[in-house]
């Protein structure tokens, strides 16, 4: 007997986007459940340190400025209608978060305080010390508890199911603690499963960021968009690649090369260290490549900020620097380098989170929604501004939740066969039956991560990427036969890691495909064999569809431009 759960709206993932969309769907009258592979407060939204952007118009800021800087930051690949929505609605969402209980930093008058962030001329980043994401995540979890929304905690989704009309009809998932499968019928599924950082090694991302949402949607027939746009964050620690927040530079820290020079002067004379991330990361990598680094790093210098200030505003980062690099920021510059951080691309959605087009300009999966890093609206285009990711999760999470709640009122009861569970159950059984041998999932993942970090990083070119493509192809074959020692059903982490690796290999393939297709340099995608941005040919999105026989199918969509025509990008 198959266990069946039925909801109007099922949210996959319980980070900020997932919980925000669940609350919105609940408020709009839908029956909602959240299904997540880790407890909600373990989600990677925790890692967002610096803050959340919003132009509060009642304090003299203009949403148009925020929107323009986001568009410019995106290297004009962001869809401007979506960016306008983001910038216009940001203020209300910040206030809503404050009302829910987020303890945003206050100024002397007890009103919300701000700090500066990269790519923006004005201080419009609201924050909670340097653990803004965590402070928001825990508050949204509190709201989920208050609303009594059911959480299926430590459940792993194996596939999205569709009915005979091709509409999304729910998911198949198993409970990690018992290994038991269940069918979740839902008229709408919102994918909010986060990013894919572990496709790279190293990455700032947590070990759970394995691109599950993107791969699930892709396999179900929804297109992935602009997957080549992978952000390298300018300040990550050597080794495991842990993140040092942009808040450090926002609060005034310098970047120095081995000569002690503030080298950003040569790359971005106006914005200096606070130029957009792609610009700063490229500058750092050039300094390092040209021999002005030390052991593959340049330096972040906070000393002039003073001990008291660091303790007040950068406490967590300093703790992290002490624990993981053995450095006190008040006393020494810390070695940092660009490291893989964020996927601007993702599951193509419209501005209400739909993964299909109601005007039928592009093909998708009706009933499927996405929000957060998993999704690509597209806001961030070729490069995301710091502190826009948290904003993305709450604005578009909320919109997806509301739209899903409205959508389910128009759909009849779901009718799918319970036998769909058997396909995934059989896959798991076959993985467990494979003998474990020399080859391991750890080896495959490491090889994938290293090749991606070598050829799909700050600088890219045809030959290296083609090489990476071949390697991923071989790794996919190896994945089909790799076995694990644990044959049990209870908390089989090896099994979970195997399935995640399968998702990541699909993601890697699409990143490479997107990057090989885009023959220009734009935002985070910088090709040494095509040095310039080419608006004539490439001011467009790349859509990738899953195909059963080999490489992804490629399609294109125009960038939506409202009021900002592309200009040369200078910081």
């Amino acid at each position: 007997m198959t266990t069946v759960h039925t909801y109007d709206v099922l949210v996959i993932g319980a980070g900020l986007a997932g919980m925000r969309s669940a609350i919105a769907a609940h408020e709009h009258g839908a029956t909602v459940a959240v299904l997540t592979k880790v407890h909600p407060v373990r989600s990677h939204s925790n890692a967002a340190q610096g803050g959340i952007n919003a132009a509060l118009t009642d304090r003299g800021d203009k949403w148009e400025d925020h929107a323009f800087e986001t568009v410019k930051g995106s290297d004009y690949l962001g869809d401007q209608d979506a960016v306008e929505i983001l910038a216009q609605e940001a203020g209300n969402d910040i206030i809503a978060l404050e009302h829910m209980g987020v303890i945003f930093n206050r100024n002397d008058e007890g009103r919300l305080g701000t700090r500066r962030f990269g790519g923006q001329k004005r201080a419009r980043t609201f924050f909670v010390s340097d653990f803004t994401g965590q402070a928001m995540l825990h508050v949204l979890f509190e709201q989920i508890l208050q609303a009594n929304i059911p959480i299926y905690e430590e459940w792993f989704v194996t596939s999205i199911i569709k009915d005979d009309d091709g509409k999304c009809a729910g998911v198949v998932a198993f409970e990690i603690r018992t290994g038991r499968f269940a069918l979740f019928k839902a008229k709408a599924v919102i994918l909010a499963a986060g990013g894919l950082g572990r496709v790279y090694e190293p990455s700032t991302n947590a070990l759970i960021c394995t691109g599950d949402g993107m791969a699930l949607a892709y396999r179900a027939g929804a297109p992935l968009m602009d997957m080549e746009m992978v952000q390298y964050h300018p300040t990550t620690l050597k080794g495991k690649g842990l993140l040092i927040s942009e808040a450090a530079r926002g609060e005034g820290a310098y970047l120095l090369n081995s000569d002690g020079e503030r080298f950003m002067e040569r790359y971005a004379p106006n914005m200096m260290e606070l130029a957009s991330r792609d610009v700063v990361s490229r500058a750092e990598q050039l300094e390092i490549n040209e021999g002005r680094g030390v052991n593959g790093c340049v330096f972040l210098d906070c000393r002039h900020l003073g001990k008291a200030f660091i303790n007040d505003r950068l406490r967590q980062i300093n703790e992290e620097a002490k624990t993981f690099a053995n450095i006190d920021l008040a006393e020494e510059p810390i070695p940092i380098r660009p490291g893989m951080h964020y996927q601007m691309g993702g599951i193509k959605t419209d501005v209400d989170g739909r993964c299909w087009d109601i005007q039928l300009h592009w093909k998708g999966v009706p009933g499927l929604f996405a929000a957060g890093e998993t999704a690509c609206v597209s806001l961030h285009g070729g490069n995301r501004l710091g502190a826009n990711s948290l904003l993305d999760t709450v604005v578009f999470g909320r919109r997806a939740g509301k739209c899903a709640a409205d959508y389910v009122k128009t759909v009849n009861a779901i009718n799918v066969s319970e036998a769909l569970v058997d396909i995934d159950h059989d896959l798991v059984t076959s993985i467990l039956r494979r003998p474990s041998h020399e080859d391991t999932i750890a080896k495959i993942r490491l090889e994938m991560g290293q090749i991606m970090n070598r050829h799909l990083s700050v600088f890219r070119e045809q030959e290296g990427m083609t090489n990476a493509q071949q390697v991923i192809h071989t790794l996919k074959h190896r994945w089909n036969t790799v076995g694990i020692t644990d044959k049990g059903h209870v908390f089989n982490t090896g099994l979970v890691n195997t399935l995640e690796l399968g998702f990541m290999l699909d993601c890697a393939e699409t990143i490479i495909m997107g990057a090989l297709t885009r023959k220009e340099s734009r935002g985070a995608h910088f090709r040494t064999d095509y040095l310039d941005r080419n608006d004539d040919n490439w001011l467009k999105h790349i859509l990738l569809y899953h195909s059963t026989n080999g490489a992804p199918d490629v399609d294109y969509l125009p960038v939506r431009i409202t009021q900002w025509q592309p200009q040369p990008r200078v910081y």
Partner: protein
Amino acid sequence: MNTTLRIRRFNPEQKTPAPFFQEYNLELEASDSVLDGLIKVRETLDDSLALRCSCRGAICGSCGMRINGHAALACKTKIISATKDSQTIHVEPMNNMPVIKDLITDMSPFWEKIRQIQPWLQPSTPIPEAEHVAPAEAMNHLSGVMTCIMCGVCVSDCTVLEVDSKFVGPAALAKAYRFVADPRDDATTRRLTALNEPGGMWDCTRCMECIQVCPKGVGPMDRIMSLRAKGIDEQLPSTTGSRHAEVFTDIIKNKGILDEPMLAVRTFGFRNVRRLIGMIPIAIQSFRHKKIAPSGPLHRAIPGIDQIKRLFKRASVENHTFRNK
């Protein structure tokens, strides 16, 4: 450096499930974390080892476990500090919660207790159109508690929970304090009244273990003490715990040295004969071992009691000013 990880394992799917220890010998850097070690075991020696881990940077709270007898985050514990006494590092699942498999515990009792304190903001109405105006200082103070990542480490090593599973525990109490101390929250009296019940804030024995092990500097026990102070300020119905605190203060203020029999009598109340009779053997034993001073009228103030009184006066003024801030 050559390191041995001695890990307590448990597989519930074995025929007769029983915990056992397994040792893994491997090369690690001194600067590696215990989590790095465990991941290396899983990736190179034994992929069946089960543990939770995610962020590697002490923010997600997944990898709470006992390392050399005390709960900690594996990602925040360095090999160098864990091998101070021996090159073997003992790794076990957290205490005070059931073990599911290897280092993975069932945290549902933990979450149940968090839920018990109604962990959401209950602001007064009407809600302002813009943000609540709140003192920067108050928000900064709260951020010291909001850094709690719910890893369960304090609960694992709580000595009260070890003997009384009904105790709401350090994490939930710290969370409760986060709301009680929030100027925007309007449910303070209701919250404190609930925490005044058995199993609540008065059941902490102040062993300090939670402060010692908390990886985020939340200091749960300090928050519990602040809750108690607020409870006394609110003049909630007295409990054994609150009377103990008040009588204790009163005796010290007037005598400068503790009168323990009187402390017991006044805390439990003169009429609580059964409880007081129960205390007699302890009193006799303590008296025999010269652990307690003479009681009642025989209990004299120490020389320099005036200075102690002055200290009390000053502390109460400072406390008053602080609380009015």
